[in-house]
């Protein structure tokens, strides 16, 4: 059993580190983890759930605003949504999403339709990828806890 826990823990550690190394996450996520204590054991999961819900909402907002068939493109609305998304992703440490949002915002300010659409697609892909990765990570965490082990603190540096 201990061996399994150790293996899971190692797996978890490696996986987490890979997420940082691949640029999915940054230090802000570590910050988030620090906030999770006995008082709020599912803090990270809650925040992230909120974040992904937010993503779905904002992306569909933007998709609607960028839909040419419904009329003119409302760049200011897209901009507002991007700003929101940027703030959220920055707060949870979703590094790639945040980086995309930065260039998305620039395209938006430049009223570059093509660029905006491309960014929107990328953001969509990126947040889904992150979601999958994080789900995997949470699954690992769960497995460790089920096996009776402790989720290890992962030192990124």
């Amino acid at each position: 059993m201990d061996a399994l826990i150790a293996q899971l823990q190692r797996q978890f550690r490696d996986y987490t580190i890979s997420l940082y190394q691949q640029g999915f996450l940054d230090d802000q996520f570590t910050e988030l983890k620090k906030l999770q204590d006995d008082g709020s054991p599912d803090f990270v999961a809650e925040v992230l759930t909120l974040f992904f819900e937010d993503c779905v909402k904002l992306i569909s907002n933007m998709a609607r605003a960028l839909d040419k068939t419904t009329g003119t493109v409302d760049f200011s609305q897209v901009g507002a949504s991007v700003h929101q998304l940027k703030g959220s992703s920055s707060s949870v440490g979703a590094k790639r999403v945040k980086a995309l949002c930065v260039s998305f915002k620039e395209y938006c300010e430049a009223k570059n339709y093509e660029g905006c659409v491309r960014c929107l697609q990328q953001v969509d892909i990126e947040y889904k990828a992150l979601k999958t990765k994080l789900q995997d990570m949470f699954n690992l965490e769960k497995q460790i806890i089920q096996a009776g082990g402790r989720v290890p603190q992962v030192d990124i540096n």
Partner: protein
Amino acid sequence: MVCEMETDQIEEMDVEVLPSMWPENVGTEADKQFNVEKPAGDLDTLKEVTIEETPTIADLTRLPELMNSTQQGSSQLTNLVKQWEYMQDNAVRLLREELKNLNRQREEAEAKELKIIEEYKFETNEPENVPVLDETSDLFRRFRQKKRDALVDSKKIEIYEEFDTVAYWKQKALNLEKMLEASTERERRLIEKLSESLKTMESQSAPVQELTQNLKRAEGFLHFILQNAPIVMGHQDKDLRYLFIYNKYPSLREQDILGKTDVEIFHGGGVKESQDFKREVLEKGKASKREITFTTDLFGSKTFLIYVEPVYNKAGEKIGINYMGMEVTEQVDKREKMAKLREDNAVRKAMESELNKTIHITEETMRAKQMLATMSHEIRSPLSGVVGMAEILSNTKLDKEQRQLLNVMISSGDLVLQLINDILDLSKVESGVMRLEATKFRPREVVKHVLQTAAASLKKSLTLEGNIADDVPIEVVGDVLRIRQILTNLISNAIKFTHEGNVGIKLQVISEPPFARENALNADTEEHEQNENAIPCLFKKYMQASADHARKYGGTGLGLAICKQLVELMGGQLTVTSRVNEGSTFTFILPYKVGTSDDYSDDQDEFSDMADHQSEPDDTAEGYFQFKPLLGSIYTNGGPGIGNDFLPHKVMLTSPIKLINGFVADPSNNTGQSEMLQLENGGYVDESKLETSSGHCPESAHQYENGNGRCFSKESESCSSSQASSEGGTLEMESELTVSSHTEEEKAETDLKETPKPKILLVEDNKINIMVAKSMMKQLGHSMDIANNGVEAITAINHSSYDLVLMDVCMPVLDGLKATRLIRSYEETGNWNAAIEAGVDIKTLENEQVSVRSTNRLPIIAMTANTLAESSEECYANGMDSFISKPVTLQKLRECLQQYLH
């Protein structure tokens, strides 16, 4: 006879008057248009003849003389004579041939006659029948002799002939007679022909006529060629006076030209040059060509290609020059245009490549700057963590050595922070991101405030003076933050390098250019050894006067560069004059506008606050301030002097130099203790307390000053050691250190115990951010109220009092900057009018609370996303006290709370 004819004709030539070479109808006008059609300058052989005919053309005597005396003239004559001789020879030869022919024919005829005579033996009887020319009489005699010789043969022949028939002889005689007649007739015709041909020869070969015709042809040819050619020809004598000139486009009369030199005739550019050129040719004796551009009143600007050759007389002496000029203005123009085009092309190409290079370099530079800015920003966050932690550490129990080490650590960290902030500032200015505000402000207050702040950290016995001319308006419009930054920078430099005497700011209006304002900062002091040659590099980045200076005074070396850039950004200029041992004056001139009274800017509050605490109303017009160190023995120990008066009570309890842009700055030992000393020193305690209680100094202004005057803290560090040794003495220093550590400990304890739970308001629209921030706050042991936008924030502030507001900058409905301005306006005026005007729905509330609230300044901390639009400057300008860059971290929050919640 032929030879005779030749000489005759030459003699005749001298006498005969030849007609003009040119049509006569033209010749009559020749006088008016000098030498148009009369090429007086044409040095033809028979020139003098022409001149004789039209005697109005000048210099009748000189030309033949010239013709006779010059080599050219004589050689030309010889040529013509030779040619004529040759032609005469030819004619003679032809005549002789003709004569020979005739003679031969005659001989033949005679031979025939002889034969006939012999045949008929009539010769003796009819010698007269033989046609005779005078010259051939002897020939006839020879015939007779021959006849006799041939007699024998003829007798033999006669034997066969039947000459007895009469008819035959008769017939024969008749035939012979006819033949004879024909022969004589032919002879006569030949003679006629001969004489005729002789006659025609005589008339045709008259040399004068022939030569005249030749000349006419030549002249016609010349005329034909030259009539439209843009050519000037002439002959000038040794003194370069014109003797002859031919000019296609004459504008002067002949008499205006002949006998004069170029210089006498023309005035303008090129005349002298051509004259000199001619003289040169004359002196060198070598023909040569040159292009000369004339600009004369007479014919404007024209370029001539000039050919000049020297003229010699027969003795080989120079007697003048021949000169020929062709106008090539257009060609030269074209050529020059082509050259210019080619040159332009080359230049453009060079410029293009240069530009490409520059663009490349600029791009690189921009990238590098961007990089630097980003890097600096990235460095700032962890560094502030280090400094902040060090500060916290300094609040714990430490022994003396540890504290000293810690101080070094903090001051070094602070120095790096300062450097990074400078770099950020500079790169902002350079990349054009720096934006200037146009707000109304009171220059007197700015000057006063800068001096106050400087005095606050003054550790030398310097007098700070502010001198503002009466005509400086009470309020002007400009970017007060930047102006203050410049002043603070210059003043701090001045203080830093001045060891005793005065440091001051003079402010005056200079009239030209319109509404320019001069801020002259006088450092009339025994200045630091600023060498003249150090001045050029004063404004350069990272440059200090010398390596020694850097060691002695510290500093980043960016201060003046930033000042200069800022002044230039505002459309002014910063200059420095300096004399060793007498001080330096930095002068900057800025254009300014006078604000209109109705334009009540929201940004005003900061300065109105300042005005508030200056109770006297006529303070605004005060033009002179002076700040002196109060008591040297105490204050030279490194404490803030008068500046303390303006520090709020809160700050008095801690170290006076506080958070800068949310980062902990230098909690300098010296300053800390000096306050302690002050507190212990009865008299001053009272005063400072009085000041603080009566005039709650707005924290924003104070804070800002600190932010701007960061160099002070740093400077105080760099100077402290030297001062300790020179003024206070080490003993004193050490005793202070212990005291200070003790008090600060106390302070920390009381902080923990006594502070009631602070009320914090978070204004943020992003719920994830809210969630994260709230959770962090919880970990730090605080709870927060939440407002989702500026309007909600104002409503919340209106309803209850807060100790700290964390304000997102970019929010829907009402953004953080505007909300802050409205809150400040409320604090200032005690009412929400500005907010109501802005459309915020405020329910009027208890007036008491409002009045109480209005006296306190609510710390508002911005939360920025670190975009260019959300610059820290903008936050300060809108009345915020500090800012936290997003994403918010535990560390940042903790630092912030430590600074603002006590």
